[in-house]
């Protein structure tokens, strides 16, 4: 091949691959632009604080925001201890070449790949039908269902299982970034393994653990399929009063408004407004998490 044609091919190849990268970024910008342009006019104090009215064509989305936030908080409380403990086990406690650690890793990788709708089935089959109905048999009056039906707590626990890999992966990366010397210094001063963990390793890994928590929250707040059968409701006159109440959810609100609304045109402004709120919530969280992670990674690279 002549030098000239090799050069032309090189330029074409760079252009083609660069075009692919540009296409992805362009689609991202397009989605954001469409949602912001369509929804910004709808945002108002009333929209954020009022309940829906006029057959879902007026009013606000406060119950959906409230339900999303409360469910996500419950989920975070459930997933963080288990996720952090698993990462600590994998990175600090498991003996090298441990069979159990290997098995945990394989399980977590596969857990991350389970389709979200299957988590929904799992929540229904395990938390509601097995745990909830079991609690009813023990605690409720015969013939009544108090626990064994869709509820906030079951949706939150289902999403906690779904987000477990996110927390584990982020926490383990954070633990890896804590220099070995710090651990050795603590142990050499007579600190036990758990003291070293609590006072040296975990504080050092805190930004990374926080990143994991934020990513889990962003993921959990945006997932709809797992909560379809485990607790979400389209419209409720009251806010959920206990973890065993059903709740409204931003993502589900978007789905219903977009697909089941009798008058799509009339619901459109409300729909765009809701998408914008959901996107701001999840997107802002993701952006913060990615920013923290990029910075800690760069710091870690500079340190080594």
């Amino acid at each position, binding site marked *: 091949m002549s030098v000239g044609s090799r050069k032309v091919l090189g330029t074409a190849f760079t252009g083609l691959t660069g075009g692919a990268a540009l296409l*992805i970024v362009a689609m991202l910008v397009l*989605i954001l632009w*469409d949602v912001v342009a369509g929804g910004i006019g709808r945002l108002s104090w009333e929209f954020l604080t009022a309940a829906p009215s006029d057959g879902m064509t007026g009013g606000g989305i406060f119950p959906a925001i409230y339900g999303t936030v409360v469910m996500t908080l419950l989920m975070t409380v459930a997933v963080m201890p288990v996720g952090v403990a698993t990462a600590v086990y994998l990175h600090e*406690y498991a003996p090298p070449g441990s069979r159990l650690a290997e098995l945990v890793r394989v399980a977590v990788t596969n857990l991350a790949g*389970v389709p*979200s709708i299957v988590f929904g*089935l799992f929540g229904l089959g395990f938390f509601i039908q097995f745990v909830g109905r079991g609690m009813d048999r023990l605690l409720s009056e015969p013939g009544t269902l108090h626990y064994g039906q869709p509820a906030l707590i079951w949706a939150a626990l289902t999403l906690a299982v779904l987000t477990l890999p996110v927390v584990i992966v982020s926490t383990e990366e954070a633990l890896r970034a804590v220099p070995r010397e710090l651990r050795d210094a603590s142990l050499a001063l007579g600190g036990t393994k*758990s003291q070293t963990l609590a006072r040296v390793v975990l504080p050092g890994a805190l930004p990374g653990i926080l990143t994991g928590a934020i990513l889990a929250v962003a993921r959990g707040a945006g997932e709809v399929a797992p909560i379809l059968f485990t607790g979400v409701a389209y419209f409720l006159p009251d806010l959920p009063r206990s973890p065993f109440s059903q709740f409204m959810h931003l993502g589900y609100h978007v789905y219903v408004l*977009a697909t089941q609304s009798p008058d799509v045109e009339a619901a459109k402004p409300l729909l765009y407004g809701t998408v914008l709120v*959901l996107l701001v919530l999840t997107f802002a969280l993701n952006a913060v998490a990615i920013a923290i992670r990029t910075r800690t990674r760069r710091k870690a690279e500079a340190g080594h």
Partner: protein
Amino acid sequence: MDNSAPVNFTLTTGGEQAAHPLPSIRRRQLREAIIAGVITAMAVTGIAAVVLILVFVAREALPLFTSADVKAELGGFGKMFLPQVWKAGRPASYVWQPVGTIAKYSMIPLFVGTLKVTVVAMLVAAPVGVAAALFTSEFAPRRLREVLKPTIELLAGIPSVVIGFFALMVMATWLQTAFGFSYRLNAVVAGLGLALAVVPVVFTVSEDALAAVPRAYREASLALGATKWETAFRVVLPAAAPGVLAAVVLGFGRSIGETMIVLMASGNASITSLSLGDSVRTLPATIAAEMGEVVFGGGHYAVLFFIGVELFLFTFILNSAATIFVRRLVRRMSGVQA
């Protein structure tokens, strides 16, 4: 246990001698063992989760094989996979029509629908994702790379219901104008929507694989007179091949299981056809759309859980394959010094 420990070694630190005698070594050892035990027990949750998911989804599907009522409703397991004659004189066909005088539960329209949407998604997402990864790791200047990577990762942070909304409201209209589809919502709209969700997966995993190729490979190739793109295409890409393959397989798994995007943008008609312009119904969308209307414990209910088991197994196999490819890449790269 407090003071009754038979051996009373006390450890003291320099500064606070005798003021606070530290707990005995035994007590410390016991506490450490308990903490290690608790942490290990919590780590097993991940394994328990995967096992429980399979067990409890399968448990609800079990009546398909054990309950006489359910078996009677379905008319045999084979009806889910073999063509059936529904009207005398008509050719045998595959029909998914769970609501009606005779419920019809053929899996084939759902398999075909899932495959059509997935193929469209992968035909777009795999080349675009891998090409963008090549650009980011091989051609982009450092500054650009540090902006590109997090930006594309952000796309993965958009909830799938929002992508579904975008596909339904915006992309469907564009594509209908461009191609003149007779159905506004079809396999192409759902597939392209899906591609938006899959592309960040393919990109991120391939980029990691390409970045793991040692610098020495590139330097050797350039020193032998190859140009930058020849190095990228003939040296770096082949070296990272297992990782890139893993990226595509993971993307494939993700697109089979994705629910909300296809539920919103595919039209959800269970038609067995090969035309990409027809509406389609996929496996996950079927579960999402129909679970709200089923009789608990009935045949339809069990079939939907059976679809869940299928999805679990498909993605489990794909993920395991991806893990094996990644290991191969790590082994290949570990022998070389960067």
